[in-house]
């Protein structure tokens, strides 16, 4: 026994930046170790004979060889339980406000802070009774975590047995609320669970995504829908409005929980998120949006190893809420910075580099990470839960052929191409409709047919065709001018303009236009296409093209975007379009 204890401590042998070598430590891969006298947190990333290579989550300046390194025997884990929501963490789940209290405005090292508050007492209400049989994932009880969120307390995975004791009342997350008698003995269950971040949490069954994540943003919902449990990538070129798009998604998407990971981004930008999110109102409850949000902030100058860990911390928290039967949207901003952190650590390990210096396992890691998205049946409930991942990529020099973007596009099925040129033309949200795509269209078709309208997909396809055609025609127009086009093609250009201005463009800062439900989207589509059909018919009956193209009612479709009672308005507009065109035919 004494011998075994001895092996848990090794001696620092070599230090070069965030990667250190330890001798005489018996450790498993990804064990968490405490480095040096200051007990800096680190993680084992390579074992080579007697040498153990550790990446350290804090600055290593001043650490000397010969200092002790202790193996905790645990893997890098997050604390899961009531108190997660409204929290602001760094990459390894240390709450930033607590760090500020303990070490001031700058992040110093050697300070440990648990992810959750261990003193606070929560009101626990049992959902199960003594004598009932439970298994991993079952809901034992619930806690009103924030005014809008009822936190389910679950049996930790891999525990199965009969409840011998369960009690209501106020408890801290460490106190036992329930005792389960299992085959191996009795287990005390507290509200706190720990889970290693690099391991995905178990579920009963994964399902094909078949329900859209509705965002209230027309360009996403209509043209490039994302499924709940799906994955999407957004490239974020300079000044294309990525931040506003992400905030709109956080605010309006029909996810129950938002996990936002700021990974290696700018400090001032993170501040914007950290200061604005707490002021954002949840349009559904009227309360603060933070009540269903977890923020993780690891800026570019914070330790690189913690940056590497931050996306795993985020996705593990997301999976935990998924297991309660919630729909979780996780945003990673930006996954390119995460990949760069991998590259940096890999080069410190002197690994053979792959493309552009990235490690050869880049594609595998990216795929593994995005695979943690998904629509699942959790262990303990029949209500489906999902994790939807929206990852931002920042291609170097705007070059999409670089490895991170390419490997990301291979695994995600929705691509929202933010375009700085559109932003400069004040087209918002500046999603390029020609380069974006969604492969969920087919899978979601039945859902839209059932919940929106039977001809939804047909309308969408038709509009996409018009937009594609416009792109081709515009090339000709640049050479010869629009007047020399045949009337039919002039009409196509006009209809495309209506689609761009009335459907694709949406004002995030307007009270009403900021959110658009499916019914409204559908009516807008219908009205635009009504004009297209009638105008086309009128042209065939030899109405004068300039008259057809300049009828007044069509421009009023746009007014409906800003109108609460859009139905009445659009019906009226449809009637005027009909009567105006009828008048021309005469």
């Amino acid at each position, binding site marked *: 026994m004494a011998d075994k204890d001895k092996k848990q401590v090794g001696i620092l042998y070599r230090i070069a930046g965030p990667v250190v*070598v330890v001798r005489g430590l018996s450790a498993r891969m990804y064990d968490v170790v405490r480095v040096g006298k200051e007990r800096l947190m680190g993680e084992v990333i390579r074992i080579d004979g007697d040498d153990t290579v550790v990446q350290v989550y804090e600055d290593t300046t001043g650490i000397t060889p010969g200092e002790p390194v202790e193996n905790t025997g645990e893997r890098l884990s997050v604390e899961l339980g009531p108190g997660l929501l409204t929290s602001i963490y760094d990459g390894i789940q240390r709450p930033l406000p607590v760090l500020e209290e303990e070490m001031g405005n700058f992040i110093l090292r050697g300070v440990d802070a648990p992810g959750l508050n261990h003193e606070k007492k929560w009101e626990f209400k049992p959902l199960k009774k003594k004598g009932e049989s439970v298994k991993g994932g079952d809901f034992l009880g619930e806690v009103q975590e924030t005014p809008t969120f009822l936190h389910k307390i679950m049996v930790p995975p891999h525990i199965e047995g009969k409840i011998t004791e369960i009690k209501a009342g106020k408890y801290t997350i460490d106190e036992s609320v329930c005792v389960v008698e299992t085959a191996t003995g009795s287990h005390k269950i507290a509200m706190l669970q720990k889970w290693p971040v690099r391991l995905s949490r178990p579920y009963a069954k994964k399902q094909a995504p078949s329900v859209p994540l509705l965002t209230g943003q027309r360009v996403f919902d209509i043209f490039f829908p994302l499924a709940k449990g799906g994955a999407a990538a957004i490239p974020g070129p300079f000044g294309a409005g990525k931040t506003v798009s992400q905030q709109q998604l956080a605010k309006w998407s029909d996810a129950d929980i938002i996990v936002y990971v700021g990974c290696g981004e700018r400090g001032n930008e993170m501040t914007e998120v950290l200061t604005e999110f707490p002021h954002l109102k949840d349009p559904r409850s009227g309360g603060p949006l933070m009540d269903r949000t977890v923020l993780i902030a690891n800026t570019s100058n914070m330790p690189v190893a913690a940056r590497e860990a931050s996306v795993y911390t985020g996705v593990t928290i997301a999976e935990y809420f998924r297991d309660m039967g919630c729909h979780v949207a996780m945003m990673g901003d930006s996954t390119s910075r995460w990949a760069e952190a991998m*590259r940096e650590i890999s080069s410190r390990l002197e690994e053979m580099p792959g493309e552009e210096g990235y490690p050869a396992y880049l594609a595998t890691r990216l795929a593994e990470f995005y695979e943690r998205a998904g629509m699942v049946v959790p262990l303990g409930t029949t209500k489906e839960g999902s994790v939807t991942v929206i990852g931002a990529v920042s291609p170097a020099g705007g070059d999409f052929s670089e490895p991170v973007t390419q490997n990301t596009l291979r695994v995600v099925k929705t691509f929202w191409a933010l375009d700085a040129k559109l932003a400069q033309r004040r087209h918002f949200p500046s999603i390029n409709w020609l380069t974006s795509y969604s492969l969920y269209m087919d899978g979601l078709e039945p859902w839209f047919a059932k919940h929106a309208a039977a001809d939804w997909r047909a309308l969408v396809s038709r509009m996409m065709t018009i937009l594609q055609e416009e792109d081709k025609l515009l090339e000709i127009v640049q050479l010869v001018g629009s007047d020399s086009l045949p009337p039919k093609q002039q009409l196509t250009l006009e209809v495309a303009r209506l689609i761009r201005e009335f459907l694709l463009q949406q004002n995030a800062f307007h009270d009403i236009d900021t959110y658009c439900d499916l019914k409204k989207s559908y009516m807008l589509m219908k009205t635009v296409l009504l004009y297209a059909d009638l105008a086309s018919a009128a042209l065939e009956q030899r109405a004068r093209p300039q008259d057809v193209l300049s009828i007044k009612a069509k421009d009023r479709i746009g007014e409906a975007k800003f109108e609460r009672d859009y139905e009445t308005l659009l019906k009226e507009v449809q009637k005027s379009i009909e009567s105006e065109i009828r008048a021309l035919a005469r």
Partner: protein
Amino acid sequence: MTTNKEYKTIRKVAGPLVFVEKTEPVGYGTLVKVTLADGVVKSGQVLDTSDDIVVVQIFEGTSGISKDAKVKFLKENIKLPVSKDMLGRIFNGAGKPIDGGSPIVAKKNLDITGAAINPYSRASPSDFIQTGITTIDVMNTLVRGQKLPIFSGSGLPHNEIALQIARQAKVVGTTEKFVVVFAAMGITNEEAQYFMKDFEETGAIERSVVFLNLANDPAVERLVTPRMALTAAEYFAYEEDAHVLVILTDMTNYCESLREIGAAREEVPGRRGYPGYMYTDLAMLYERAGLIKGRKGSVTQIPILTMVGDDITHPIPDLTGYITEGQIVLSRELHRKNVFPPINVLPSLSRLANMGIGPEKTRDDHKNVSDQMYANYAEGVDLRGLVAIVGEEALSEKDRLLLNFAQLFEQKIVTQGRKEDRSIKRSLDVCWESLRSMPERMLTRVSPALKQKYYGGK
């Protein structure tokens, strides 16, 4: 702990690195003194430490170091002595005074690595800094706590622009302390003379702290220079409540040194031979700009870098652009046309501009004017390409006006004197003078109320 031993156990000297065998534990990143046979003392920093061998980078270069040089490990990190008296002084790249004055009596010795600001402790930047240069103030507004680099090319007048900003920068309407920290890395002696002369002639030196690392100074010292400058800046900002503007020139030289060290250590190179950790390394410098909740001072940065071959996708400008909040891009074409300052507004951007402008901060028409000029100038420049093919006669009246505006924009708005300090009001008025060359109805980005107020002229 034992007292500092002296070793005579240098095993290998390679480029700027010295490999020393030792017996006592040596901390990573700590300071090292090397005494040569002729009594010359050099200093260095531990880059890699293990049980037996320590790798030291020597700031003054390794020339003259032999295997019997004496090595002493100092068990402390590199520190900069700071005090208020640093104002008006000139230091070398390693923080030693070179202006003939007395050494600084330290009020504090600060670790130059600096720590990351807790994102939760940061305050949002929102105060406008007037540089007196119209293209920056109106169209790429700089705010306190921002880092806004100048992307230049060799042979372009970025130094003049930097000096003009250093002289003129102020926060309008306050009497708060304003300090300029100027750090030059690898600039030529001639350039240094030019800087010093200008600083002294204009009196800007009195509110400045200058760090100079010249082209013939050791390359490794360049890695320390910006950290010294930022440490001094943080001292003035957070302990003396000053608003500090840090000008770092030329970051390209800094990155070259980084690459040199990487190569000497035989590291696996990343893109174009630069080390894989360059992003993090640059971030640790640039991210030291900012504002902290509850503290009065601020650190604003203007790093200057010359783009290799004018290539904006080169790793140095590319990684910089991903960390900084925008960029100001100089154009060789404008420079050839004799436009000063040759700032090309089209690829330039200030990501925080909207936080520093508006009725209370600058003027009510600021945003509209900026948008309008961007739109008109962009269209005007596009039309130049067309004119080259079809000739000016083929243009419509509207196109001709836009073409003319692009010309006016470069001649009247971008162009300004090297000593001309335009207030923001003056800058906006200059913009209106050119906007009036177009009929009112063509100014679609300006609201009718503002057009009524400003279009008519005074």
